[in-house]
């Protein structure tokens, strides 16, 4: 925690800023990338959104007051950036979010950066059949192994609601995988 406080101070100081940016990016780039990638699905889009996320972090670091952990705050920015990226895409294509996500999952088969087998593709189809919030909760819990307390900070939702949400998501996905 002390380390995080020191890093934040350094990020706010113009003299130590650039070196601290590097430290911040190195520490969080992979985790944030995979979080974004699971929402937007394609590598190129995940790369764009990850860069936008860091730019937003740098731009707003002055206003970061330490109420939450730095990585939870960054996860929240990454989540918002990914969802607003998808919303913009859907708006451009004049389709709703469900249709857009279905199209993106269907493109995975031809994606050179997806080497999943049939069952992994089916799992992605099952995930996008869930409501948006359940998708996020499922990804963060199942793949990223985040604690409910951490997800609660990121999504600003109570731990109880998250447990219920994950339970429902898991059940729906299991049924989808067995029946489809």
């Amino acid at each position: 925690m002390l380390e995080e406080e020191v890093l934040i101070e350094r990020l706010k100081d113009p003299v130590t800023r650039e070196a601290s940016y590097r430290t911040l990016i190195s520490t969080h780039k992979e985790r944030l990338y995979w979080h974004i990638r699971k929402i937007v699905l394609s590598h190129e889009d995940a790369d764009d959104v990850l860069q936008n996320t860091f730019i937003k972090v740098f731009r707003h670091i002055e206003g970061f007051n330490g109420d939450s952990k730095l990585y939870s705050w960054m996860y929240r920015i990454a989540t918002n950036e990914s969802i607003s990226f998808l919303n913009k895409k859907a708006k451009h294509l004049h389709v709703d979010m469900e249709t857009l996500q279905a199209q993106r999952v269907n493109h995975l088969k031809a994606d050179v950066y997806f080497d999943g087998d049939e069952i992994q593709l089916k799992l992605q189809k099952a995930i996008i059949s869930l409501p948006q919030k359940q998708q996020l909760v499922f990804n963060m819990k199942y793949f990223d192994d985040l604690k409910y307390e951490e997800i609660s900070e990121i999504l600003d939702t109570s731990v109880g609601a998250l447990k219920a949400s994950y339970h429902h998501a898991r059940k729906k996905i299991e049924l989808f995988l067995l029946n489809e």
Partner: protein
Amino acid sequence: MNKDRKNILDNLKESGTGFNHPKGYFDDFETRLLSDLDQNAQFKKHIETEAEWVDSREAKHLDLIGKNHGFKVPENYFEKDLGTKSMAGSTKIISLSRKNAGKWLSIAVAASFLLFFGLKFYNGNEKQLDFTDLKNDEIENWIDEDLISFNSYEIAEAFSNVDLENDLYSDEEVTDYLDQIDIEQLILDD
């Protein structure tokens, strides 16, 4: 069945998501991002300097113009009480009373007839629009909004309700066209 359900996700967890990324993608990520940011900052700085320069030039010109604008006012004009002068002058007020109502009504009726027939005539002469009628700024806007980046599949998905076949050519037209051309010759040409 319940056991299958429980096991299926537990077993799948080991194999992960199936996503991967280009080799070495994370190696130079910091350098790439920070150099992009640096380039943007330099560009922004350049633009800001340009804007400041333009602002200062404009301010200088306005200053010069303001000091010697060439207009003149009557002597002692600003010393007089402007408020009293304007209030004291008598202004003729035209009322929309019953007496004038007939006159205004006839003007309004005449104007609406002119407008009605005018618009009808104008619409009657409306020509068929084609590509040359598109303004340059509309085309630029299309490019700026990144609509040009959509491929034909995405456009087809967005306009799935448009029946291109029926709208453009009838079956007879297509058959006539195919009868007229020598397909074998076309294949050889290409």
